[in-house]
């Protein structure tokens, strides 16, 4: 049986796909805009994609704080319902 992917792995894959960056660039400390070249619309699209993928709601004031890859992983880990 295939091992279930961690939230971190899934987030990383989505960022690679959305921003067209190399997986090794997507470190927990990488900033979306400065390090990964995202524009403001990319960040909106990413938030919408995370909301859909993980079935979480990210209010605007929270979304603004998610500047690094690690921030997103932590936010989702804290807010996602445990999938059984």
């Amino acid at each position, binding site marked *: 049986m295939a091992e279930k992917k961690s939230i971190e792995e899934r987030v990383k894959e989505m960022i690679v796909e959305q921003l067209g960056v190399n997986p090794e660039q997507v470190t927990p400390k990488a900033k979306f805009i400065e390090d990964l070249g995202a*524009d403001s*619309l990319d960040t909106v*699209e990413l938030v*919408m994609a995370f909301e859909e993928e993980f079935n979480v709601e990210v209010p605007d004031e929270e979304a603004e704080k998610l500047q690094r890859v690690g921030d997103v992983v932590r936010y989702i880990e804290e807010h996602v319902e445990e999938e059984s």
Partner: protein
Amino acid sequence: MSTNSLTSKVAVVTGASRGIGKAIALRLGQMGAAVACVSRKASDAEATAGEIVGLGGKAKGYGTDVRLKQEVDETSRSILRDFGQVDLLVNNAGVTRDGLAARMSDEDWDLVLDTNLKGAFLWIRAYSRHFLERRTGKIVNISSVSGLIGNPGQANYSSSKAGLIGLTKSIARELASRGITANAVCPGFIETDMTKNLPEKVRAKLLEEIPLRRFGQAEEVAGLVGFLCGPESNYITGQVFIVDGGLLA
């Protein structure tokens, strides 16, 4: 006319039961698009949809009050379920409640702004995620020459129509990088229910000011909207087009 240039496209037209909106719905249907006709009353929307189907096209009617977020969100989802996708959004729904500003009621102000301006925003927001995901989408907002020049008695209407131009330009800039376009069309005086009750004296005076010496036909606006929904307009975004018989020339 480039018939069939919209084959396999799905269009949403608000205010599709009468006047310019109906002409637009019919034109897009003629050009091959499947058309979701939206009107406040479902039966009115279904009548226009029925005409499109009668001409061999594909269409469905939806009753929706465009002022209400919940109704717009629900209908926008129903349309996606029914047609599988949306490519074209024409925000045409509009009302007038004319009166001099000094005596205009809050209700008349709100009704016109909520229908004409907020309604368009609600539809754009409802489909922006869908458009972003698919990297395609064309938005056409029906403004008015009243949004470009003032018109006594239309503080609410001209504000809403000027607002639509700002909305169009901002949305065009926000979504351009994803291949999504937004343009505005400003009809002048067109023969519709909205203008048919103008007093004869007013009408005669207007005709003197319109270089082409006649009111326009709804189909003459629909033709431009069809072009702006078609592939030949792909490089045009954030623009305002005037169809007014030369009134503002």
